[in-house]
């Protein structure tokens, strides 16, 4: 009944539903964002989820280690998801499952409302009309194609996450002798999982000289079971016609190039790839939203707003996180700010309507009148001078999130970053320059933060908090660019 009220048949026959906030993706980011938007007073919220259930990847991550930061207790993936899903049931947030978003159109100018083109079995192809969009599509795994491993193309090459689904949800064991390439967390966790279910994991091999997974996973997933772990090694060939029969591995040099003569044949029937994740941003790119090529996700400001006003992003679609707790925190920020922006928008519209009524009553046509078009223009002007502090990654820093600060930034801002290599007993330094003198050496600008860190490694996301007072200084100094870099001893 509710749906009927919202549904309008457009001339072209597409069904159209109206919402205030549309969240794309029902994983941890989408759940966190929609819940916090709801709690902040947002109404008419919808989650569009491609899968058959909410929770994203969490229901298949049956191991524990979730929620230590957010809930202060150790939970499994399903339990973590369950807390949010059951909380969502007590709200009026609507959920459309098995619904694929095909396109979002959120033009910078000309159209206040945003349109989302979706498809599902019940409605066919339909449109959602929303004031605010929150992107929470997450990421997907890098595949064999991305690595370009030579050799035949037999069955038995899987990504670690896909295997996790087969084993934990569908109940299939994909092989008996498993070789794991890459020491990412999912790969390590699957090495343990497959061992527990009776498969033999013959080796885990990592191209870098260090592990990309958490310390705990190396110890509890690999060493506990006596699984050989090789660093600075990669797979150079896949053998087998119908099914994987083995792989050739090779030691690599400092430039990660295979060393001739170091080849070794390892027999296995399954090759598992745990070689990185890519934020899933086809929708984002097509909408013309600015992408940061280093993260593979949209450029966002401290409110998690993208380069298009009213479009927010959070979770792994922005940058790949190692902890779901951080995804939740980030999503809550996105949801809360989205709700806030919604109120401002509604407030502005109400003012406008108020003016019109006033005008009618007074028959005074030319004072204080704002037409829709004029107002749009003003919004865009505001937009242009808003994101005017750039955050850049200098020596030793791969990227920062957020990448921009608005000139209205208030309170503490936590900036996340990843380092390019392992640093011990070094410092993370943040200095500012006023945009004009970009040639200034790192550290020669006004230094706002300089913090000692005992150990920073690429596998663990780092963060630095810009305190309220520091933010005030940055604003009053008129900083155009904040540079994040590592200072070694």
């Amino acid at each position: 009944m509710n749906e009927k009220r919202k549904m309008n048949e457009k001339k072209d026959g597409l069904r159209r539903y109206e919402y205030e906030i549309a969240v794309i993706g029902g994983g941890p980011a989408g759940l966190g964002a929609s819940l916090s938007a709801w709690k902040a007073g947002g109404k008419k919220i919808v989650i569009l989820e491609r899968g058959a259930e909410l929770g994203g990847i969490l229901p298949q991550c049956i191991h524990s280690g979730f929620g230590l930061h957010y809930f202060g207790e150790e939970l499994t993936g399903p339990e973590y998801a369950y807390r949010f899903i059951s909380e969502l049931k007590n709200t009026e947030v609507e959920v459309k499952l098995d619904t694929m978003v095909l396109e979002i159109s959120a033009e910078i100018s000309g159209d206040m409302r945003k349109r989302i083109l979706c498809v599902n079995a019940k409605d066919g192809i339909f449109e959602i009309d929303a004031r605010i969009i929150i992107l929470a599509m997450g990421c997907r795994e890098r595949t064999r194609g991305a690595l370009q491993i030579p050799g035949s193309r037999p069955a038995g090459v899987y990504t670690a996450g896909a295997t996790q689904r087969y084993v934990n949800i569908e109940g299939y064991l994909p092989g008996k002798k498993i070789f794991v390439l890459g020491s990412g967390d999912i790969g390590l966790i699957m090495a343990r999982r497959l061992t527990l279910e009776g498969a033999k994991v013959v080796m885990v091999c990592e191209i870098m000289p260090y592990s990309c997974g958490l310390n705990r996973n190396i110890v509890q997933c690999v060493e506990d079971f006596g699984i050989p772990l090789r660093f600075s090694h990669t797979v150079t060939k896949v053998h087998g016609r119908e099914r994987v029969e083995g792989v050739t591995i090779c030691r690599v040099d400092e430039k990660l190039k295979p060393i001739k003569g170091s080849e070794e044949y390892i027999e296995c029937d399954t090759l598992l790839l745990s070689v990185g994740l890519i934020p899933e941003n086809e929708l984002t790119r097509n909408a013309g939203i600015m992408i940061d090529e280093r993260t593979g996700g949209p450029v966002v400001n401290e409110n998690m707003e993208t380069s298009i006003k009213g479009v927010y992003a959070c979770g792994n679609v922005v940058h790949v996180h190692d902890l779901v707790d951080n995804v939740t925190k980030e999503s809550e920020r996105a949801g809360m700010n989205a709700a806030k922006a919604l109120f401002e928008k509604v407030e502005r519209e109400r003012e406008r309507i108020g003016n019109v009524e006033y005008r009618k009553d007074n028959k005074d046509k030319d004072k204080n009148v704002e037409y829709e078009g004029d107002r749009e223009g003003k919004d865009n002007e505001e937009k242009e001078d808003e994101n005017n502090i750039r955050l850049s990654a200098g020596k030793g820093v791969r990227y920062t999130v957020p990448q921009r600060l608005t000139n209205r930034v208030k309170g503490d801002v936590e900036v996340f970053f990843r380092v390019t290599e392992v640093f011990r007993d070094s410092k993370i330094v943040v200095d500012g320059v006023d945009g004009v003198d970009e040639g200034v050496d790192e550290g020669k600008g006004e230094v706002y933060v300089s913090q000692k860190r005992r150990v920073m490694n690429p596998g663990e996301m780092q963060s630095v908090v810009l305190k309220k007072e520091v933010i005030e200084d940055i604003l009053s100094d008129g900083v155009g660019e904040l540079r994040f870099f590592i200072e070694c001893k």
Partner: protein
Amino acid sequence: MRILDEKAELELEHDVLESKMESKEEKKKRFVCVVCPMGCAIDTKYADKDGEVKIKEVSGAECSRGKVYAELEVTKPVRTLTTTMRVIGGKKKLVPVKTSKPVPKNKIFACMEEINRSRVQAPVYVGQVLIKNIQNSGADVIATYEVEAWN
């Protein structure tokens, strides 16, 4: 993530789990601490008389929590086991489960076997006890997600 100097890496490659025998009484074991990202290499010396382990020395830990971790790893290593159990009459084939508290490391495979032999009738609720006191470990096996029944 962990960084090891080459020597340590070699050592670990050769004996990941096996403890080195110094003499019949004194044994040595090296751990990489998992308490924090520092990943200290902690060396322990202990005596093992018919399963009765006595710590003699713990070195290399940069904090007290690391020391406690290493001591526990030597005397009584435990792990929380997470796996799945078959569901009968449910909308899903499997329900994820965990042990209500950590179980001794050497009972992990016995627990797996028992869980894989067991079946549970849907519906299953989060927190539902599926196996009591598995393998006499004092831990229960509980469901960590819900599975609805077919009708």
